[in-house]
């Protein structure tokens, strides 16, 4: 279980002055500013949950992930993962986490992926049989068995990401942190990755925390969404609990066959729905669906609403 209590993180940065005069001034005396990356964050993630962590750039998503993976120290508040403090980086904790980033490779660039996997198997002390079975299963599921012996630098982006995913999952982590896992990938590869992650969650109760600006990732990989805005959590609940009243307009689409048996579509407001349905013979109605707000728009409206 991941428990975050009143976590606040500030960091110091420098304000750069404009122009050559400003640069010379900064050389002798810099303007220091304090930035609050996270402000009094509290949340609980239970084992086996699939969480989508979203927010605008600079909202604090990456900072939160860095705190959870033990990269950054927390000075205010408390973070515990299975009763362990991430920053202490105990061996047991490190064996239980896996990280996959869209832009940072953990594979050895000049060598085939299999060499990295052999090394990781030794680092995570995986029993030989378990490693072999796990690698076989993962590489078959991701269809990369033939690619394991090709130098990583020779692989395409999609092939590399699949290999990266294997590296992150090889030791069967209890907690998996994903950052833009499908960045730049074709839709077939995306579907494959979604499938594998869902299987991991289903069979091994892997807790998956996904950070992504791509809503499809969130839709496919998250049962629960945490929305961050300016370092604060503004929403933390199931995806379907996103308040629908934010929707400015609800419309209905009616697909039907006209007198010439050509498929047509009508869109109407809720108060006109019954009136229109009454005019179309029942046997010609193909489908009636509610056109609500797209998830992306819904989240955007939610964040904007919080910003006002």
């Amino acid at each position, binding site marked *: 279980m991941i428990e975050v209590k009143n976590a606040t993180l500030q960091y110091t940065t420098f304000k750069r002055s404009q122009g050559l005069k400003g640069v010379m001034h900064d050389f002798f005396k810099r303007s220091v500013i304090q930035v609050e990356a996270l402000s009094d964050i509290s949340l609980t993630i239970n084992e086996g949950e699939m969480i989508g962590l979203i927010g605008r750039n600079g909202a604090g998503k990456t900072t939160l992930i860095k705190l959870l993976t033990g*990269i*950054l120290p927390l000075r205010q508040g408390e973070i515990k993962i299975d009763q362990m403090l991430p920053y202490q980086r105990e061996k047991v904790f490190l064996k239980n986490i896996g990280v996959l980033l869209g832009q*940072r490779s953990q594979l050895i660039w000049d*060598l085939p992926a299999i060499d990295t996997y052999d090394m990781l198997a*030794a680092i*995570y002390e995986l029993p030989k049989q378990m490693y072999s079975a796990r690698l076989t299963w993962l590489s078959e599921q991701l269809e990369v068995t033939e690619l394991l012996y090709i130098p990583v630098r020779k692989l395409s982006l999609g092939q590399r990401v699949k290999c990266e995913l294997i590296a992150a999952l090889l030791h069967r982590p209890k907690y998996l942190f994903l950052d833009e896992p499908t960045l730049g990938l074709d839709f077939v590869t995306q579907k494959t990755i979604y499938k594998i992650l869902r299987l991991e969650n289903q069979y091994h109760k892997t807790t998956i925390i996904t950070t992504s600006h791509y809503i499809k990732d969130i839709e496919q990989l998250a049962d629960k969404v945490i929305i961050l805005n300016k370092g604060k959590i503004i929403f933390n609940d199931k995806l379907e609990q996103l308040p629908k009243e934010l929707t400015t307009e609800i419309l209905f689409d009616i697909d039907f066959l006209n007198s010439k048996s050509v498929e047509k579509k009508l869109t109407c407001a809720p108060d006109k729905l019954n009136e229109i349905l009454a005019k179309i013979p029942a046997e010609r109605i193909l489908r009636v669906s509610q056109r609500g707000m797209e998830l992306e728009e819904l989240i955007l409206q939610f964040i904007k609403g919080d910003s006002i």
Partner: protein
Amino acid sequence: MKYLYVFLASLKAKLIYRTNIVLEYGLTILQVGVSIFVWQALYSQKALVVPNYSLEKLNAYLFLANFLALSFSVAPAFRLATQIKSGRLSTLLERPISLYGEHLAYFIGDQFLGIVINLCLVVYFGALSGISVLMLLLLVIYLAFAGVMFFSLMMILGMLAFWLIELWPLRSFVTACYLLFGGRYFPLSHLPNKFFIVIQYNPFSLVTDIPARFLTVGLSGYELMQYLIVTLGWTFIFLVIYRLILKHGLRLYEGVESI
């Protein structure tokens, strides 16, 4: 076991680029050749002579000092600095592996070919100088400890990247220090005695000048033991400093450009 795999991965990665290996040793031979050429000119004119060193011994000394420097490389410092600057250090921090251990295993793998070549040079020049097997063994043990000492110093240097971010400006300074204080231009014993007494114990000298002197003009077992004790002393100091700097440095680390 995990460090063995890190070592193997590093060795494999090194062996892939055969041209780089050839260039590395070829350029070192060229560099030594230039030094030998200069000293040959000085000796022939009797303009400058290093006491206790005939021209042959001096050539051998320069060759050994510079080839040993290939194995005792400053590369670990800049590998660590690059990892800190790029945020790739996070990959290591997220794994159940010691940062020091991983870097040491990687370094040994990266330098393995050089280590083997240097061991062969030790045996060759030792036999040439009539040094006993026992003394050669003592030298090998000394070189192993000196290697760890030097590596620890490089790790400290690399960790300056937590504060400096860009370490490349220091590269020239470190290289200059290594060339001068490591005796790679001339034997340090050529310096005035009041400087030599102190300089001989500096970390750069301990990995190049001392073994090169041992294999050319010779050192007694007692003297070698003395240098070994100093080496162990430096190692202890560097390891203490390493742990302190790592603790403080990690607090500043932001994992920029990555998680």
